[in-house]
């Protein structure tokens, strides 16, 4: 607000004096945007309650049979596979992300920019490319038998690591510069400073990174498509292959289910750890 005020003093801002569009128009626009974003999800949710074997909207009749199907082994197996994979990916990304973020944020070493580019690269590289590259590489070095779970784990860590490195780096950068000297002046050895000050303050970033990594892994289809194999398929790939037979209400139920899981996770973690600033950019107040 302050910045806005000083800005408008320097330069006359005609829109603030004579507002061409009233607030109600802005509200309507925002409502439209939300409808556009949420509408398809609501329709999908409704479709999952159809009685017939077709995806009508509005749904005809009311039945829970598609939900029974969604909880059946055909879907539960890839769902559990996806959850296991995403959990492992989140843990490994955090374990590797914290030291990497420290190294990038606090130290200078030869080849730093190269290592950083390689680590953060997958953020801008299409994961499709990463997937093809991994597929080619594993076949070339004769590790084709790693296809499936192990290849997915490697691939997902590669594409999820940047998130956890970034969020930890943000929490390290946001730390007031005098905290560590202050702790040292109070008699804390470098190890004690790390344990009592630096790490506790990096934890929200680490958790935020884990959540991003989990969601990114859980949602990924581009990379998984190339390196999954029967029996070791994440949910997204299972949904995609099922789609070849047309859209059935089961899919609607499965989709809603796969949307609720990360949502619940964010809500749960957001309650216990302050990750709000990473998700919504609320300024942390020290």
């Amino acid at each position: 607000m302050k910045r806005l005020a000083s800005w408008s003093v320097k330069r006359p801002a005609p829109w603030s004096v004579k507002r061409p569009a009233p607030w109600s128009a802005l509200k309507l626009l925002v409502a439209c945007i939300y409808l556009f974003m949420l509408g398809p999800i609501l329709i999908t949710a409704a479709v999952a309650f159809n009685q017939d074997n077709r995806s009508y909207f509005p749904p005809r009749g009311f039945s829970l049979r598609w939900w029974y199907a969604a909880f059946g082994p055909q879907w539960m197996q890839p769902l559990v596979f996806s959850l296991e994979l995403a959990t492992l990916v989140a843990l490994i990304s955090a374990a590797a992300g914290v030291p990497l973020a420290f190294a990038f944020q606090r130290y200078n070493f030869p080849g730093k920019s190269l290592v950083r580019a390689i680590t953060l690269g997958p953020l801008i590289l299409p994961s499709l490319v990463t997937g093809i590259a991994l597929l080619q590489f594993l076949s070339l070095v004769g590790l084709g038998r790693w296809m499936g779970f192990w290849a997915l784990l490697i691939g997902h860590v590669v594409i999820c690591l940047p998130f956890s490195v970034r969020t930890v780096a943000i929490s390290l950068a946001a730390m007031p510069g005098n905290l560590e000297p202050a702790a040292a002046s109070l008699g804390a050895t470098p190890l004690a400073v790390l344990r009592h000050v630096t790490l506790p303050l990096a934890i929200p970033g680490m958790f935020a990174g884990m959540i991003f990594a989990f969601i990114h892994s859980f949602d990924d289809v581009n990379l998984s498509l190339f390196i999954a194999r029967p029996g070791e398929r994440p949910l997204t790939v299972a949904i995609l292959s099922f789609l070849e037979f047309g859209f059935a209400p089961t899919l609607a139920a499965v989709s809603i289910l796969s949307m609720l899981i990360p949502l619940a996770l964010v809500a749960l973690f957001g309650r216990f750890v302050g990750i709000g600033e990473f998700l919504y950019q609320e300024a942390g107040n020290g």
Partner: protein
Amino acid sequence: MVEPALRLAALTKRFGALIAVDAIDLAVAQGEFVTLLGPSGCGKTTTLNMIAGFITPDAGSIRLHGKAVEPLPPFRRDLGLVFQDYALFPHMTVAENVGFGLRMRRVPRGEIAQRVAQALDLVQLTGLDQRRPSQLSGGQRQRVALARALVIQPAMLLLDEPLSNLDLKLREEMRMEISALQQRLGIATVFVTHDQAEALTMSDRIAVMRQGRIEQIGTPNDIYERPTTRFVAGFIGTANLIESREGVIVIRPERLKLCPPGQEPPDVRCWPARVERVVYLGARLELRLRIADSTQLLAETVNDGGATWSTGDMATAWFRPEDAWVVAKE
């Protein structure tokens, strides 16, 4: 002879080609409050950081109570530090912040609780021990930082511009409070600031720094009444600097008198002057004058209902010889 609490000898730090601190000597007696005062970049903060152990000096020595501390890392120096931004740990409560230094010293839990309570009492924060720093006002944070630095009973206290983030009224209150606390505890203190009012009101002695050197050191009275260089005269308070044959004459505005032409007392130095502007400050009046060689002078008079001046008046500006002094031209 009693060892001083702190003795710096020929302390030097270079950053590349820049000499940040240039062979300074300084002794701080037990219980003394010494301020390092100067514009930004004068080397005062670098000096403080060398005392604290965050910056390694290039040359010279630092002795705390007679003991050389240059080889010691910051966590072994036993100093209480207060930073400009307070540097409170945001993930700890007030009590945990204050008790941190004791915890690092492996003081038993019960004793920590007791000493933390005492320290919070000392800074008048009793009852706030379970708050987080984010729930405190600026002044309260400042007090927590002070309690945290004092509770370890450090060899000396280092204050790095601790008041500059507070608003004016609170700053004036805290000046008095820190001074009173420091005197009560009798702890040797080095205070870094660029604010001359803080330096004048709080210090036993002030070291005015410029370009890595201590330009003058003395009591607030010495520094204000008898600055030895042109820089010190201009940096502390306002001063009229009049070029003359023997050097630069320094005269404080409140000591420069004004009277109608020809009515000046005998045996004073005087100039004919023209009143260019009268600034009304309520209790005081500020008169901007111009003398013959177009030098501008500033006189400050008490608004006591005596002579009034207005723009364009001709007058005589004079001062008693003992109110002015001469410094080198540089």
